[in-house]
């Protein structure tokens, strides 16, 4: 390693330059991205964690209606809270690989229809009971019950039968699924004693921290689980999550040192906050994206030329710059980016092209009446401004858009999935199959673009059972092309997760799976 690279590496690890900057410089010095990434991972791991202390996070996304029942987790704070006390069978690491947690190893039948998980021995729940294979089966069974109202119902519905045998759990699926381990990494599926049937919201799990204080919508306090099996996680003696939904108050709490880390930094103030020497901005490109969705079955969007016209009429780079303040990446009208495994990076980027937009608009034979685009602040942060930018760029191509602002309250029940053209967002999923199955399969409940394409559906089901990664990657690439050129999805941008930490916090590493290091920042970081 040459001196410049070593210097850069040290500065990156200590947080003085960004990972993005390091990767760029490394590439300029002739180091491939893969090598640079692993260098960074090794260097970060080489920092010795300091044990003890009290780590605090100020977070948006908590309400006084929150419960500790992992089945009901839907917003950021419950997600992070559950990650403190609970643990899933496996997790997905920053590189998109399976990270074994409660399960120690796994295997599948050649047709990917039967999966076997070996449960780690000696894992203890906070109540002292040993975690068994029966607990795992009971947990998954609880989530298959519709009365549990589990957010993971769609995932566990694919399970045909389960059995516990000694320390192994065998799961038979209705249809083959090569991605099944990624599905059981879902954050709702925290393993609970007895499946949590008796008391789903007890907050008893096998995670690195035990629940001390649980005041929904106010604060959640934890103390270290002394019997936790993995010494690489859980450095601070105590951690606390304080719910601070107000953007300004959250930043002030970080600046005044009341908390050590915060989530969801408003892109508008990032540049201002950078001037504070006591604070570091941590952004990572994730899988979440902001979209405009057209119903392929409703006039005038049932005409592919009109859909193409609208896709060419949006200025993606301008949106990233103005709506995300540069903290994001341009989209390409299919919901997958480089953060997904098996992403095909050779698919041509669609650019803003008023001429092509005008050509397709003419070919569509639209009568020239204004096309109504519905939006609201609730659709995504900056959705109203994004719609106005879109209106301007479309006007340059001669396409009349009419922006209609809807009330935030009721947007998800009255506008989204109801009106034919509106703004929306998706949080992304760990694997391509899950993203496509959730929102683009003809029969999907959340098929919010009313996209029906037999070839696409067949490819999706075939890819699910395909264990040869090269073939599978090609199938996903074909699907991306179909959706990009025929679908009802206009995807201008992928938003970064932007968090911020105080200068005394160490051990931070990027994780594209979710904000706050995929909910584990409090367990993986330490105070210097």
């Amino acid at each position: 390693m040459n001196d410049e690279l070593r210097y850069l590496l040290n500065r990156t690890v200590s947080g003085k330059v960004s990972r993005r900057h390091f990767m760029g410089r490394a590439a300029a010095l002739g180091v491939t991205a893969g090598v640079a990434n692993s260098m960074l991972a090794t260097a970060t791991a080489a920092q010795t964690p300091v044990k003890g202390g009290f780590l605090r996070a100020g977070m948006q996304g908590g309400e006084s209606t929150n419960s500790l029942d992992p089945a009901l987790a839907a917003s950021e704070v419950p997600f992070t809270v559950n990650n403190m006390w609970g643990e899933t069978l496996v997790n997905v690491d920053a590189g998109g690989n399976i990270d074994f947690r409660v399960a120690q190893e796994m295997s599948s039948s050649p047709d990917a229809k039967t999966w076997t998980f070996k449960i780690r021995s000696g894992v203890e729940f906070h109540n002292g009971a040993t975690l068994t294979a029966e607990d795992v089966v009971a947990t998954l069974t609880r989530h298959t019950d519709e009365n549990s109202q589990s957010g993971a119902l769609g995932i566990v519905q694919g399970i045909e039968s389960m059995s516990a045998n000694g320390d192994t759990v065998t799961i038979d699926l209705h249809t083959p699924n090569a991605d099944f381990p990624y599905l059981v990494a879902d954050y709702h599926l925290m393993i609970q004693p007895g499946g949590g049937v008796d008391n789903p919201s007890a907050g008893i799990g096998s995670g690195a921290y035990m629940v001390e204080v649980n005041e929904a919508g106010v604060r959640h306090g934890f103390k270290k689980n002394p019997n936790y099996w993995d010494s690489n996680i859980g450095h601070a003696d105590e951690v606390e999550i304080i719910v601070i939904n107000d953007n300004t108050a959250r930043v002030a709490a970080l600046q005044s040192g009341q908390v050590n880390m915060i989530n969801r930094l408003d892109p508008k103030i990032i540049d201002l906050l950078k001037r504070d020497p006591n604070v570091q901005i941590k952004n990572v490109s994730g899988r979440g994206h902001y979209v405009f969705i057209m119903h392929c079955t409703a006039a005038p969007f049932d005409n592919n030329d009109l859909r193409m016209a609208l896709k060419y009429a949006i200025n993606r780079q301008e949106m990233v710059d103005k709506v995300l303040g540069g903290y994001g990446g341009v989209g390409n009208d299919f919901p997958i980016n480089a953060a997904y495994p098996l992403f095909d990076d050779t698919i041509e980027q669609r650019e803003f092209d008023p001429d092509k937009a005008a050509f397709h608009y003419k070919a569509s034979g639209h009568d020239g009446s204004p096309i109504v685009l519905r939006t609201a602040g609730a659709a995504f942060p900056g959705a109203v401004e994004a719609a106005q930018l879109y209106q301007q760029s479309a006007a340059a191509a001669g396409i009349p858009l009419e922006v209609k602002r809807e009330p935030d309250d009721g947007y998800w029940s009255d506008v989204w999935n109801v009106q034919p053209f509106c703004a929306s967002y998706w949080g992304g999923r760990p694997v391509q199959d899950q993203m496509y199955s959730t929102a683009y399969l003809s029969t999907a409940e959340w098929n919010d673009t009313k996209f029906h394409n037999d070839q696409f559906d067949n490819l999706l089901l075939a890819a699910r059972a395909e264990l040869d990664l090269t073939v599978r990657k090609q199938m996903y690439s074909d699907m991306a092309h179909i959706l990009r050129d025929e679908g009802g999805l206009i995807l201008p941008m992928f938003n970064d997760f932007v968090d911020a930490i105080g200068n005394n916090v160490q051990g931070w590493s990027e994780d594209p799976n979710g904000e706050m290091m995929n909910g584990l920042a409090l367990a993986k970081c330490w105070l210097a």
Partner: protein
Amino acid sequence: MNHPIIKLVAQRIALGILLLLAVSILIFAGTQLLPGDVAQAILGQSATEQSLANLREKLGLNDPAYIRYFSWLGGILQGDLGTALTNGQDIATSLGRRFGNTIFLAFWAAVIAVPLSITLGLIAARYAGRWPDKVISGVTLATISLPEFVVGYLVMFILAVKFRVFPSTALVFDGMGLFERLNAVALPIIVLVLVVLAHMMRMTRAAILNVMQSAYIETAELKGLSPSTIIRKHAFPNAIAPVVNVVMLNLAYLVVGVVVVEVVFVYPGMGQYLVDHVAKRDIPVVQACGLIFAAVYIGLNILADVISILANPRLRHPK
């Protein structure tokens, strides 16, 4: 004891109870009018017909509205506010803690704001039209003109981020000492004091100046009393009624209207609790909060009426 006063006070209290009953009917009717079925709202998108029917049965949603109203009212009279639909917790317990926090904040804000504003009002009236009056009026009008959250951000920036005198988030929890607790809520108290100061101070000033026009004040002046003594002995006792009314309005505001301040300072009071549950259509909690807010408002107004009655010499000494 004077008979007419007891009668008047009893009348006020009876009226207040009637009013509260009327409000409870309004609250109940209003929450019934909210769009969406409660069972559907609880179960969400994954609801099946069977589970919806089970839940409706369990919640008693199949009974006619008036029966549900009386069983709700009966529960409240016995101190049973029901359980929250969203997280299954007992409403009385969680609401009780929140209400305690709200009252704590309101109490300390009032302890500072009420004497301060009345004193400032008296000073302003004493020096009406001169510079102390102008300074006091100008500053208090400026703080009331700024929206609460702007005042909140300003004091937060100056006192928490720049000088780090007080914490920026007003986190309170069980087991905190009084001093610790007061330190935690210092910023919201400052903001609330600034917001309610002007109203009470202006009213005190106006009421005193109004009384100062009376003939008996002129007599007092002719007797050679100093302006301060005139205000203290003759003007203020006669200006109490309007001042008490405004003070009570502001106290009610400190209890029921501070949701913005609660959000900015992350204070676990009732306002935030109510807003969260409205968003989730958690009807029992919304009804309970509505009723408590109404009770506080009506109660404080009755108190204001009673004090006004007692402060009125014509009622105190009937012919």
